[in-house]
């Protein structure tokens, strides 16, 4: 959680640029998706640690309450969901790529939207799920939000299938079909986004209705 005086809120799906400056003046800028949405000056981030990274180890391991950060944002008006949108929405997230999609799920719930929402979340193991309790609670309480998981390394007890990557079969079984023309948001590592977007187009989704956000991973 970061308090940003004057932030003034953000749309679901937007990101911010965070700049860290070392004592020798060296600076590193990274983009992070925002997990929160709506008005207010408090911003929630969820950061995956890249052990060899320049920024994420500091954010995950070293940052202290009260530390100051240099932020720019909110940024990006394209990979966003607004409560006035009424069409069905299919969200597909890989790993920490779920973060901007969480913001959309939260905005959907907070606004009382009745647009059908569905999240397909690909994650290594059950322990790696971000905001697991919140997602499950929302899926149980809302008739307009459906949650599906794909585990790539280890599955929960009694899970009906082995771990594996998202495939055409999984996308056909666990996402809205192209025939209902959903808005689709895909976020994750570049390879994940590439393969999911290609399968979706092969399944008949209009390329322009599939919005993607790749992160490079450094």
């Amino acid at each position, binding site marked *: 959680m970061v308090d940003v005086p004057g932030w003034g809120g953000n749309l679901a799906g937007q990101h911010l*640029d965070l700049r860290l400056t070392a004592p020798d003046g060296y600076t590193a800028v990274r983009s992070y998706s925002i997990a929160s949405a709506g008005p207010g000056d408090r911003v929630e981030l969820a950061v995956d640690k890249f052990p060899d990274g320049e920024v994420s180890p500091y954010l995950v391991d070293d940052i202290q309450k009260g530390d100051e950060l240099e932020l720019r944002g909110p*940024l*990006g*008006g*394209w*990979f966003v969901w607004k409560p006035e949108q009424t069409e069905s929405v299919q969200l597909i997230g890989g790993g920490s790529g779920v973060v901007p999609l969480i913001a959309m799920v939260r905005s959907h719930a907070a606004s009382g939207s009745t647009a059908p929402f569905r999240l397909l979340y690909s994650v290594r193991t059950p322990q790696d799920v971000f905001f697991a309790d919140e997602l499950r609670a929302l899926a149980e309480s809302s008739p307009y939000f459906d949650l599906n998981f794909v585990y790539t390394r280890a599955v929960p007890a009694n899970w009906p299938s082995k771990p594996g990557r998202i495939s055409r079969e999984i996308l056909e079984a666990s996402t809205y079909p192209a025939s209902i023309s959903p808005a689709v948001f895909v976020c994750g590592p*570049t390879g994940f986004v590439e393969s999911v977007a290609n399968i979706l187009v092969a399944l008949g989704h209009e390329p322009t209705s599939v919005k993607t956000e*790749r992160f*490079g991973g450094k």
Partner: protein
Amino acid sequence: MMPRHVDGNALAGPLSDLFAFDVTCASGRCVGCGDVTVLARAMVYEDEMGFVARCHLCDSMLLTVVRTADGAWLDLQGISGLHVAL
């Protein structure tokens, strides 16, 4: 091996210094293939110097942003027109 790219969305921050509007939502026409699409769909490669955005269809260079000591150099040679929603 090609370096990994991200999407044009990533340009929203760097280009907010240069444009008064969110240019990632503007549609640009690719000089290479004529495709018109939002800049957010471009393939963006980043290095220490700055950013290169390439057409998501034909891979032509759309624009480059290079940081200089006192500013930024923006080269738009691969975009023959920009449509901005007003």
